[in-house]
């Protein structure tokens, strides 16, 4: 289990760097997909909520170091992870792969929307109204994340979720 967590930490570092240096540049309607949220949603579904919150907090620290907005990133990622934790599938459950996938997608949408809402409330670099930022950008980002989550789940995570 410890080894698995170390592996997650390594993945989190890599994904944070990928997000900052590549995905954050691929914007559509000023919004980009958030792969860190997808990764945190996966951890939320597969591990305990306490571990998941800690990963969210760590992701916030990394994101803060890379963007310069430490506090807001920490808060947004922690809250996002905490909420995604409610979609956890207990180990002893007999959920099918489809049920687990559905929970994973739901975690991606909810965590993405909450993270975006907090980041939008705290920072407004493009001068849009709060409602527009939270609702439109939040929904758009959730949609992009969901599309990404579909692809990632289909390619890599399905087997892992089944186990």
């Amino acid at each position, binding site marked *: 289990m410890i080894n698995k967590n170390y592996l997650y930490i390594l993945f989190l570092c890599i994904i944070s760097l990928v997000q*900052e*240096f590549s995905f*954050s*540049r691929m*914007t559509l309607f*000023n*919004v*980009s997909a958030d792969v860190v949220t997808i990764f945190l949603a996966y951890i939320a579904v597969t591990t305990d*909520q*306490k571990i998941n*919150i*800690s990963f*969210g*907090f760590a992701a*916030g620290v990394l994101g*803060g*170091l*890379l*963007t*310069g907005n*430490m*506090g*807001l990133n*920490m*808060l947004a990622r*922690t*809250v996002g992870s*905490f909420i995604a*934790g409610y979609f956890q599938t207990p180990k002893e459950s007999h959920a099918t792969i489809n049920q687990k996938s559905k929970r994973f997608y739901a975690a991606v949408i909810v965590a993405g929307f909450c993270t975006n809402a907090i*980041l*939008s409330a*705290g*920072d*407004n*670099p*493009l*001068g*849009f109204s709060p409602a527009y*930022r939270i609702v439109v*950008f939040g929904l758009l980002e959730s949609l992009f994340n969901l599309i990404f989550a579909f692809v990632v789940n289909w390619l890599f995570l399905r087997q892992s979720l089944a186990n």
Partner: protein
Amino acid sequence: MRKFFTLFVEYSTWLLFVLYCSIAFLFIRLQQDDVQHKLHNEGIEFSAAVNQQLMTFNSLFTLKNENERLMRVNTDLLSRVLTLETATVDERSQKKILADTTLNASKFIMARVVDRKFSDRENMLVIDAGWRKGIKKDMTVLVPEGLVGRVTSVSEHYARVMPLIHPDFKVVVAADSCRSMGILSWNGGREFIAQVEHIPISSHIKLNERFVTSDFSTFSIRGIPVGRVVRIKPDNLFYDVDIWLAVDFSTLTRVLVAPLKIEPEKIMIMSDDTVTTNKKSH
């Protein structure tokens, strides 16, 4: 005691959540603190260094040396044009300003844009010149075409620039011919249109008129082009003017950083009422 520990274990997830959120709020609160500031600068250094490496691949396909030579020529020409234009305006309005703040304009610092973000999360530029090259906070960033923005934070080798197309950016501008002044800001939307407010309805402003930075600005040197008027809408007391910006932010690769405008007396007199009081008492 046992009950307390049971409760503690039962609600440990919530406690952890509250703890992390408290740390996050603490960081938000201490945003201006030294440690946070250092972390912020280190973040910029790292992020910009990686971006610079990534962008170096692009520069392989461009005529790097030729660009630098042209930029140097542009720097000299721009400083001459700014000085001449300012002198012409002064002569026309028959005002002799002894302490001309644009005299130092020949000492521009050249820099390359190594990172640019325009999204719902970030809106900024990073240039490859930091305090080692003499960059300071609040310096004006420009290109020969016009005003780009102002420096908001500086690390050893890099500086972060708030572009003109940021909702928090404001600068005092003046019309080229009628000298009407207003405050330029960007209210979101299109990247190439900004707004000028507080232009009195009595002023004779025209379409296609050029706007430049004014000497009233606390950070910018005067005479830097900002853009041209594309729409004028009269209100009760003021005009609402739309400006087509002179700078194309999507193609920005190299910029100039103007020396810091140091006017301690002006800042003092604007912020301190005691100056007037003391004079009266004498």
